[in-house]
């Protein structure tokens, strides 16, 4: 097997807040291979978006990133200067955000914005960049693409704007696409269309993708591999098939029990619940961060839990064997 496209080892993100140091991402490690989709799943505040922003060096100014190793296609991203990172971002690594209205510039036509990406990274002629923009808009299913180039973001619907964002991310044919909740703001029918489109393009272009979502339905359908995050840590990883068939960590099990599944959950029956709230991430956390809410908690959970490994790429952070 060849080396993974992206290797992240020991990533942490700290934010200074009045109460102390908010440790939003704590010792996160994962790899992504070419052509593979990794889903980061978890609830608000678990650190999944911060992880994505940290990879692209797009963290808020006050945030401090620490990492033992961060390699992308053989390059050490941690040692890369700002201009080299700028050259990489939008070219080899692209990102799609949740809210396309805030990610697109309202003062420029979508044509301007699409063309700029290509011209900047590829030093291409305007006509070539324009041709590529039309080609990609058609590819993401926008009818009358050439005419759309002259439109401003506010003239498009939410679903169309998200398609434009996808087209923009693909302008330079990136090796890695990071998508942060790309369909959360959209209607269910549009969500299905956009996800189907992303999955198809990813396969066709052999891109690697990191998809961030809180929606277990989305994750199950799109992911090759899944990393479940809780309180800034990855608490469980595995292939989508392994993780949904036999979740090992009590948090993953709890999450899956919370959602009604048509055909499996009896209508009107009591749904599973996870009592309590996420612990404060200010300062150091010792022991299992889930123990206060866990039905299986024991006294040893007050110490840092072991990382159990069942197979290559299948592990969880818990004293329970499975």
């Amino acid at each position, binding site marked *: 097997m060849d080396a993974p496209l992206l290797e992240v080892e020991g990533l942490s993100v700290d934010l200074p807040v009045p109460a102390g140091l908010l440790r939003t991402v704590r010792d996160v490690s994962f790899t992504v291979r070419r052509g593979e989709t990794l889903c980061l799943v978890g*609830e*608000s505040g678990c650190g999944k978006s911060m992880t994505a922003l940290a990879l692209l060096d797009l963290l808020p100014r006050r945030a401090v990133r620490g990492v033992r190793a961060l390699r992308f296609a053989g390059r050490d991203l941690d040692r890369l200067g700002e201009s080299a990172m700028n050259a990489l971002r939008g070219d080899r690594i692209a990102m799609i955000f949740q809210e396309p209205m805030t990610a697109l510039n309202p003062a420029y036509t979508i044509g301007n914005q699409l063309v700029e990406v290509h011209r900047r990274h590829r030093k291409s002629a305007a006509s070539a960049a324009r041709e590529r923009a039309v080609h990609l808009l058609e590819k993401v*299913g*926008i*009818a009358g693409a050439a005419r759309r180039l002259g439109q401003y973001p506010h003239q498009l*619907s*939410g*679903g*169309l704007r998200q*398609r434009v964002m996808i087209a923009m991310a693909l302008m330079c044919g990136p090796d890695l696409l990071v998508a942060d909740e790309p369909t959360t703001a959209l*209607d*269910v*029918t*549009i*969500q*299905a*269309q956009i*996800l*189907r489109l992303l*999955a198809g393009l990813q396969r066709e272009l052999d891109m690697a993708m990191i998809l961030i979502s*809180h*929606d*277990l*339905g*989305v*994750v*199950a*359908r*799109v*992911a090759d591999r899944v990393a479940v995050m809780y309180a800034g840590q990855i608490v469980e990883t595995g292939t*989508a*098939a392994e*993780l*949904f*068939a036999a979740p090992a960590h009590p948090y993953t099990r*709890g*999450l*899956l*029990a*919370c*959602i*009604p*599944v*048509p*055909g499996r*959950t009896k*209508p*009107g029956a*009591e*749904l*599973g*619940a*996870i009592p309590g*709230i996420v612990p404060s991430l200010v300062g150091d956390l010792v022991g299992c961060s889930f123990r206060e809410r866990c039905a299986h908690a024991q006294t040893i959970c007050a110490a840092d839990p072991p990382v159990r490994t069942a197979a290559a790429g299948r592990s969880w952070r818990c004293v329970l064997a499975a």
Partner: protein
Amino acid sequence: MNAAPLLEAHGVGRVFTVGGGVFLAKHRLQAVDSLTLHVRRGEVLGLVGESGCGKSTLAKMLLGLLEPTAGSITFDGVDIRTLDRKALARRIQPVFQDPYSSLNPRKTVAAIIGLPLKVHRVGAPATWRAKVREMMALVSLPERLADSYPGQLSGGQRQRVAIARALIMRPEIVICDEPTSALDVSVQSQILNLLQRLRRELGLTYVFISHNLAVVEHIATRVAVMYLGRIVEEADTARLFAYPRHPYTQALLASVLTPDPSQEVPDTGLGIAFPNPLDPPSGCRFHPRCPKALPLCSTQSPRSLELGGARVECHLYDTESVT
């Protein structure tokens, strides 16, 4: 379950005028179009549809917060326009989507929950505190939070406050407009469990508006599907999810992503173009996206058809259309 309807909408319509700046033309937006619907005592009516279909406009009209521009709404057989605003508010209450914006940040939890008692002057002020405490216990809010402000609460706790405020006057109907959409998965299940328990304990009737079909299937006893201001299909929950008739309902159900890793993201078969509500399509409003459209669908509006206790608006099921 076959009691007389408690809340009924008779051919209700609502038109908004949008635009109309100095140089801009005014546009007429028909958010809800001659819609007929009833809610029976004790049931949970799920109302599903995509953004802009008019479900929140309908909710506001059912609550008496917005006047219909056509048709009428009756509560227990009485036109709500003839009812006093306060009298109606005692019997029908809302729970909104965002517990961050629907609670006054400068009032304490106890003051927010007790406000309806003050407005309606229920009993002596000395008894209010006890009533609020009782209500907090009912929605499982710890008593120590009584003097906290909404900003100090989690999303789930805020939604419990909103539910307690809605229930303190012991209404008969609660209109829940996307009550769990802003919440995390683990909190969503707690709120759904709470709503189910309250319904059993207090004999409540819900109108449950949501775009999450798995949640609607779980909680509703009957479902109405809205598309561009019309109810295109209505049936008992089990029947609607097992045998969806309208092509739009079929597409909606197909786009539900169950957590099943052996399946891919489904193809809904819908074109991408969601119609502009300012310029709705002729004939059946769904025809430009409909994979099963007939030539007549673009010219003639479908009738509302009664089919064994269910209702559907589609030419495919109209024997007079399909011959």
